Structures are given as C-alpha cells and as structure tokens.
C-alpha cells in the first residue's frame, strides 16, 4: 500500500512548531506530507501490529533506486525511546526537502517506528516506559497472562517506583541525593532500609511485583542474534511478531542496503565495538570481526565530529535479541546504532561528576531548570503491605532517554549530516585504465581496472560470509563464441576500500561492447568499448 494523500498537511506540520514528541497520527501525517505524488519518497505500510498500528517504510530515491547503495534508518526499536522516532522522521523530512542531491548516488529507507504499540504509551492517560507490543503474553510463564502489570497507586497518570520501609530492605538513599535509591552494599557492611519495586501490586501473591506486564513482545528483544528465549518480553521463539517478520521479509528483498543507522539505546558510534579474537573465531561469531571493527572505528570518528555531544555513561553496546546486532551478525550489513542523545556529564563544584546515572540526571535536570523530573516520594495505602509505610515516587518516565523537545531539532540536524556522510562514502565501483589492443585478424584485447572508489569495502568481513549480500557480477554483452578468453559472467567476492582488480578479455569481431560490473549494494559501473 502506498499512501499518497497528505500534501495538505505539509504546510501545517512544517509551520506549526511542535512542542512535544508527535503522536502516532502526527507521525503518519508527516510521512504522508513528504511522500505525495511526485515526491522522491514513497510511503508504504509493511503490516499492522497486534495493536492495529501501521509499520511504515519510506523509500526515498530516484532513477534506478534498487541498484544504488542504500542506507536504512530505523527508529522506534524501543517504544519508550520516542526521540528515535522523531530523529528518523526528521531525517526523512530533511532528506526530501534539503538534500535531494544525496539521491543521485544513494537510496534511503526509513523505518520510523518499529514499536508503535509501545510508543503510544507516551501519549496515553497512563504513561510508562513500555517496550512490548499489544500481544497477550504470559511473561512469568505461570499459566496466567499479564496478571501482574503496573498499577498507578498514587493516581498521577505515571508509573514510577514504590519503596517500602522495612528493616529487611536492601535499598537505601544515595549519599549525594537522598531521593535516589541505591542497593545497599552488603560487602561494605551497609544495611538497607527500603524494599524497592516498580509501582505495582502483587495480584497473584507470588511475592513478585510487576513481573507479568500488560504488554507483549519487545521488538528489540526478539530478533535472532542471542535471542533470550523464554525471558519476559522476548517470547517463545525469535521473530514471532507481525512487525518483526514484516520488516525482515522486506529487508531480505532489498538487496541494495549496505549500512544501517538505528536509533536505539545501543551505542557503537560514540565509541566502536571491541574486537575479541576468541569470540570472533568461534563457529558462532560473537565479536565484530577485526576488519569491521576498523570500519566501525572510522565511522565512530566521523560521528564524533558530526555530533557535538560528548559521550557519557555510554555502556550499552548491544543487548540480547536486539536489532542493531542482528543487522551485523545475522544480516551481514554494516550496523551503527546511537541513542541520539544521552544525559550529559554534570560536574559538581569539586569538578567531579557522579557515576550514579540517576543522581547525574537529577543534577542535569536542576541545571536545565526541568522541574518535574522527579515525582516526590509520597505515601500511599498499599493493600499488599497493610501495616507498612509505602511511598510512590521516582524519576518521571521517559525523561532519562528523551531530551526536552526543544533540543531535538539540533540533534536531528547533526544526525542527518552524519547519515549523509556515511552515504557519501558508500561503496562505489568505477572502471579505470581502459585499454583496447588490436591483436589482428579481428581480435581485440580489452583490459580495464575495476576500482572501488570508497573508504568502505564492497563487503564487510561479516558480509562476505552472508548469503544475503550479492557478489560483484561482471557481465560482457558478447556471445560466448566471440570470447576467445575472459568470462562472459564473472563473480567477484569483494573489493576492499580503494582496491582494484584488473579484468581482461580477448574479443572477436567489431562494433561496440558493453561491460557492466557491480551489485545492488555497490551500484553498477558501466563501460562502453569500441572495438
């Protein structure tokens, strides 16, 4: 399905500045606005989720767009990471409006939101950081579905935390900011005073709180690489949901994608993944391969030049079943991920920052004048703790992953520039040094260099192992009987960064010969030779 209508909305959405992250219908309207008839962007729905939401793809390009090296930009890997959707949408908008030159050599795919069911929770009456889609799942596998979800005990429309005063507690207040709860370190002789749980009840009286959420499968925990089978939000087998299947089925038929940029909590752009020789040499590879780590390092350098924010507390370089690692380890493509924004380091008067992420966040919020960042601990009557002091409070949902909306434009600008820089360095095949030598009696020797004019190889080291990247194919349009030597069809596994290979044929006859070389993800180089 291609959604064409929506040009009418474009005026609205570009002139009326948004003050908060968009709703799903606002996202849809903005995508429709850039993909009307005559636009280089085509909007399609891959499927609908269990919750009935569209999974959109915007394919942006011109000319022979299936044979131009492409970048895929993915947002909404996590539903609570609403920034990621805005960054993906803004990338599409900026590309279409301001960077149409980029389409001369490249094609772009934008998947703005892979978790629309969960994303909706940001705008719902009850707000919480949600990951799962709308499928009905028994997360704690006790035979009863979602019996122990969150409960808004203080009726503020937010799910935060709850703490229970208890001599058997294992949490205590942080020294620097008493609002923040930290685990008591028994090894240091510390004793806790609170039990800490998500804001919830123990409906099934199993002693656990919020262990069987009213949400389904998390997209970013349900792909095949290190799939955490049978864990909450992951499910009974990988790629079990309509949206993940539809995305993968679509990707497996787009042969031109050479790199992905995913906006997700994982980060291999502030700093690259590390190489581990042991893990790289096992039958099942769990370390990025050595040559690909070098590419990651180069791209990470570009990222840090494009994006002004300095890395801080960026420790997530992939989690089990996530999308970003699937792209590299199971799909063989270059894979880059960034959260887009993180809480900056806030230094105290002593010039030191606090390593506890929540304390650092609250310092940042104070510095920025964000005054509702923390829901103060307030007492509630909790039916599961009838004679104990129970307080609900904690950091407001979403604010640790998504910056105030007025910061988003600049972030989107930086990331658009970065993605366009990767596109500009996509594999690029060119013919050079053509020579035609007459051998007499109607025979001509053709010699040419096929050159990859790029800092990236045509195939990553992992990509060489994958069936899902095509080989470089060289064709000469002469009958086999006219080819005295040289192949009519030749497949080449890989050309490295700025690497060349020399091709040669001896051809019988006269006239013109067309030679072409390439693959969908490298682009196709052509050469016309007069005999």
């Amino acid at each position, binding site marked *: 399905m291609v959604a064409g209508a929506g040009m009418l909305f474009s005026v609205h959405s570009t002139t009326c500045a948004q003050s908060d992250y968009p709703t799903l219908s606002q996202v849809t309207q903005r995508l429709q606005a850039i993909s009307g008839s005559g636009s280089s962007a085509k909007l399609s729905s891959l499927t609908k989720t269990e919750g009935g939401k569209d999974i959109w793809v915007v394919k942006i390009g011109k000319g022979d767009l299936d044979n131009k090296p492409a970048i895929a930009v993915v947002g909404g890997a996590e539903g609570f990471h609403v920034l990621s959707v805005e960054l993906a949408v803004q990338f599409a908008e900026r590309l279409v409006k301001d960077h149409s030159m980029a389409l001369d050599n490249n094609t772009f795919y934008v998947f703005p939101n892979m978790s629309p069911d969960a994303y909706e929770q940001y705008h719902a009456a009850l707000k919480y950081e949600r990951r799962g889609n709308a499928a009905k799942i028994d997360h704690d596998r006790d035979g009863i579905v979602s019996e122990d979800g969150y409960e808004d005990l203080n009726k503020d429309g937010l799910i935060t935390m709850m703490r229970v005063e208890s001599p058997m507690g294992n949490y205590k207040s942080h020294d620097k900011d008493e609002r923040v709860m930290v685990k008591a370190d028994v090894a240091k002789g510390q004793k806790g005073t609170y039990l800490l749980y998500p804001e919830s009840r123990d409906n*099934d009286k199993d002693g656990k709180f919020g262990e069987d959420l009213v949400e389904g499968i998390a997209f970013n925990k349900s792909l095949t690489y290190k799939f955490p*089978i049978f864990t909450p939000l992951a499910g009974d*087998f990988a790629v079990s949901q309509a949206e993940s299947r539809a995305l993968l089925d679509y990707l497996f038929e787009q042969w031109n994608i050479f790199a992905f940029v995913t906006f997700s909590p994982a980060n291999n752009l502030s700093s690259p993944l590390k190489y581990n020789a042991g893990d790289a040499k096992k039958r099942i*590879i769990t370390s990025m391969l050595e040559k690909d780590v070098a590419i990651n390092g180069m791209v990470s350098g570009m990222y840090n030049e494009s994006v002004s924010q300095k890395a801080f507390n960026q420790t997530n370089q992939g989690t089990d079943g996530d999308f970003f690692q699937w792209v590299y380890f199971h799909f063989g493509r270059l894979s880059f991920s960034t959260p887009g924004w993180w809480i900056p380091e806030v230094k105290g008067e002593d010039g030191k920052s606090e390593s506890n992420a929540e304390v650092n966040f609250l310092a940042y919020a104070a510095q920025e004048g964000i005054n509702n960042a923390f829901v103060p601990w307030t007492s509630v009557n909790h039916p599961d703790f009838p004679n104990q002091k129970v307080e609900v409070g904690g950091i407001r949902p979403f604010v640790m992953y998504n910056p105030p909306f007025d910061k988003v434009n600049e972030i989107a600008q930086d990331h658009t520039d970065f993605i366009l820089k990767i596109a500009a360095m996509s594999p690029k095949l060119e013919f050079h040094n053509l020579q035609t030598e007459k051998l007499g009696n109607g025979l001509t020797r053709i010699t040419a260099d096929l050159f990859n004019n790029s800092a990236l190889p045509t195939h990553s080291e992992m990509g060489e192992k994958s069936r899902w990247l095509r080989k470089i194919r060289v064709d000469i349009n002469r009958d086999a009987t006219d080819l005295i030597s040289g192949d009519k*069809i*030749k497949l080449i596994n890989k050309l490295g960064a700025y690497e060349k290979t020399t091709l040669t044929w001896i051809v019988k006859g006269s006239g013109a010969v067309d030679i072409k070389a390439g*693959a969908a993800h490298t682009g196709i180089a052509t050469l016309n030779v007069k005999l």
Partner: protein
Amino acid sequence: MKIKNWIYTAALGVAISFAGIQETEAQVAQDRYFRALGTPHNPKVQVSWNRYHTNLALEEIMKDMAKKHPNLVKLQSIGKSFQGNDIWVLTITDFNVGKENEKPAMWIDGNIHSNEIQGTEFTLYAAWYLSEMYGELEFITELLKDKTFYIAPTINPDAHDYFIKEANNQNSPRSGMIITDNDGDGEFGEDPFDDLNGDGHITFMIRKSPTGRYVKDQMDPRKLIPVAADQKGEYEMLGYEGIDRDGDGMVNEDGIGYYDPNRDWGWNWQPDYVQRGALRYPFSVPENRAVVEFVMDHPNIAGAQSYHNYGGMILRGPGAEEDLGTYNQTDIRIYDAIAKKGEEFMPGYKYLVVYKDLYSVFGGQLDWFYGGRGIFTYSNELMTSYLYFHQNAGRGNQDEQMKVDQYLTFGDAFVNWEEYDHPQYGRIEVGGFKKNFGRLHPGFLMEQDAHRNSAFTILHAYHTPKLSVSEVNEKDLGGGVKEITATIYNERLIPTHSSQDLKYKIERPDYISISGAKVLAGFVVENEDFNKLSEQKVNPEKISVANIPGMGAVKVRWIVTGGNNYSINVDSAKGGKASWKK
C-alpha cells in the same frame, strides 16, 4: 470378462450388487481371505503399501479415512504451503471419549525433506493401522480412548510432488519450492538440472577422456570403477545431468532453493554462515510456520516423531554440541528407555544422537520440539541397505546396489548408459541409479518397515502420561475439620513436564483442584511419612504442581470443612485430565 475387470471386481467388490445378491464386506472377505496376523485384515480403506502416493492420491485416501471412520478420524488443513497446497493433518482418536485436545497427544510428520517421501507413506500407514484396528484389538482401542494422534503425512506438499513428477536425483530437492539466488549473481534459479535424456531421473554424465580415472567394469558395464593410481582410466565424471544455461561456466549451480526446511526451527536457530541451509529466521518457511502454529495451539502434544531418510536411525537431539546442556540425564533416561526398546523390534535401526553420531544441526525440528516445547521427540532415518540382504555393506555400496538390481529388482533401479551430444561437453554418456533407488524403499520392503516404525511411534504414544487419582485418604482433625490427602499417579514413562520444560517453565503447571468442600488450607505433600508440606496460600482449592513424574506420583492435601460429596479434578496440559468423586 477381461482379466483386468475380473481382478477389479473381486478385490474391490464392496457391497456391490452381484447377480442380484447383496454381499457385505465381511461376507466378501470371509469367502476370500484368511487373516494374516498383525495387519488390518478387512480394512474399510484400501491402500496399497508398495507404491508412493502423490498429493492427489494422498488426499483421496485421507478423505476416505475420515469418511469411513467418522468417530475416529478427522481431516483438517492447518495452512497453505508456499505454492498454496493444503497441509493436511489427520486427527485420530476416539472422539466419543473425552475431548481430542485434552488427551495426551502424539504428533507425527513426514517428508520435511522433499525427496524423503517414504515418511509420507509411513505416517499414513500409522493412521491407517490405528483407525482400522480400533475395535479389533483391545490395546489399540484403549490407546485411542486415552490418546490423540495428530498425523501430517507431508509437511512439504509442494516439493513432495515436485520430486515425484519432475526430473530429480535421489537427493534433490531437499528444500521446498521457494526459488532463491543460490550463487549470489542476482538471478533466481537460472541454472537448474537438465533432464538430458528426458527419463524423469537426473542421473550422471560421464565422458571418455585420456585423463579419466574410471573404467567400466568388464563383468558389469553399468558399473564405473576407479582405476589404481598407476593405471590409465577411460572415463571422467562430469556430475549430474545439466547444461550451463546462463553461461557463467558452471553447471547446475542455481536450481530451486538451497534452503533446508529442517534448519528453520526456533530452538538454537543460527544463520546460514553457521548452519548451511538456514533461511531468513525461524519459521520463515511457510510450511513450518503452519506446523508451529498448530503445535502452539495444541499444548496436549506430549510426544513427537518425524520421518526422514536415510540410514536406519532413531535419532534424538541435541543437534549441536553447543546445546549439550539442554538434554539432561532425567530426560535422557526416558529417551533411552523408549528408543532402546525400538532398536529391538526394528532390525537395522540404531538409536543415535544427532550431533555426535551424525552431524551438527542448528535449528532442527526435533530440537525445537524438545528444546522449545519440552516434547519428547525422535526423528527416524528410514531405509537402510541392511534391509536388502541383512548385511551392513554401508551406504551407497555400488557392489551391493548392483546385486540388488540384478537379483531383486531385475534392472528396475538403473538407467543404462546412453550416448548424448552435450552443447558444452560434446559427446558424453548419461546413466546411473534412478531417483527412487537408494534412499527410498523398493515396494516390497515398504509395508514391513512402515509397520515397525509405526509400532515404535505407538510405543512412544503409549508412554505419554496417563494420570489417575489413585488414592484419597481422609483424616478427622476434630471440630468439623478434616484433612484430605490425594495421590495423583502417572502410569506411564513420560512425565507431564520434561526437565527441559521445567527449566524454562514452558508449559503451565498441572492443577489439582477440589470442589464441594470449604478449603481452609492447601498443600503439596513433599514427604507424607514425615509430614513435609509446602503450602499454597493463594487459591488453595486449586493446587499447582510443577510436574507429575513418569511411573510416579504426587500427593496434595487440603484441610477442609464440610465436604461430604466432594470431587477432585486433575488438569494437565500434556497429561490430560483425571477425576475422582466421593
């Protein structure tokens, strides 16, 4: 009367009017046949077990089974294949006793690999045997009262018929009919086999060559034998019949899909670079997805069997050494008990472990059934050359195969070498063993082997759990309070939850509930003699137990008031239901 018509009338003269006299099936049989023990002697559905059935014939037979045994056999399509064929499942049980989906069930399938078509016949035989023997044998009658069989003769119908109807060799195709780009050149299926001599079999191409390393055996010129290292040969081997269609200098390099439907399952799935033959992600083969959805919808499946060829093997997982920890000793004891018994009544079949005795498999079907669902599962590799002469000559032993074709099949197995003008190779010869020889049973060996394998599956199904409330004791605690202790016994080898199931809590617990009494407290009794109890404080009327072990029991206890007419109900997903009433 022509002889052909006479045979037809005699054999199939079922309830037809003959010279004005109405003959019943029983009368027809009584006058003509003497019962051979062990086989349905007067079946309502006639099937010849010495040939292979196409999808069309298969469907007719299955529909006939459902029609002739309305209380025993139901036929349903569980989904469509890639090409839109139905994937049929026969449900076989006594539909008058209990609900089909509440009895412990056995899943049986065949033909996941396209060329392994005797799996289809063997599963069909099991369905036929069970439905025809119900009411004839007490054991089978009881079995169908207790259990349900879900039988899928082919879970790969597209390529089942493609193997039969189109030119193939003994090993092709392994995949279903999704056409992929096997050589990475951007084109899909552009260079498949070519049936040069048009006989429906892809055999071999050989060519006379001064550097060839083979000669034809003078005693039997069909046989190509290698010469000694210092001898001159006469022929070179050129591979399977084919031409280079796309001009890339390679022959047969891109036929229909390379993928293996048995590397597509969602336990320990790995991509193609690790596990050759994997497709996109688990259950990206549509036929498998239909099976998985059916299995997920039928948590009563407690045992599973799939049929492959070749080799005479009863296989269990793990498929990969990396998965060794999944199969623990408690479950292996049960696997061993059933399979070792099977070895005794299946001569030529050996009980083996995939990763260690065969080869490494990630994403295999049997590993998903066990690892992903906790179901005790075997995969049998049907046919072994042992069945020819009761000797272990080994797989593909040319001398033995030629002897088979000389003394048992009289030339039916071999396409004699014939000359052919090949567009790229020039003058060649084409010939070799047919696609239906080697891996597939010849007709005369089929029924016996189908019966033995079905017997193995029946043994397996028999050992799925059978629960009963075997003992209920009451003790008066005074003051109108009494203690009720119930023993729930599993009379079979397989527990309600395999240890793999328990490890991941794959299936819900078993519930043992009491009604008709006011329950004050409820317990699982861990040790009755020393009164070790584990209390269930919430909802004590319905006690959850993690597992009811094979050939073992669990005890539960309630403290109640009232209850002069109470009943106890057991509800287990894989173990079925049981009840007791005072």
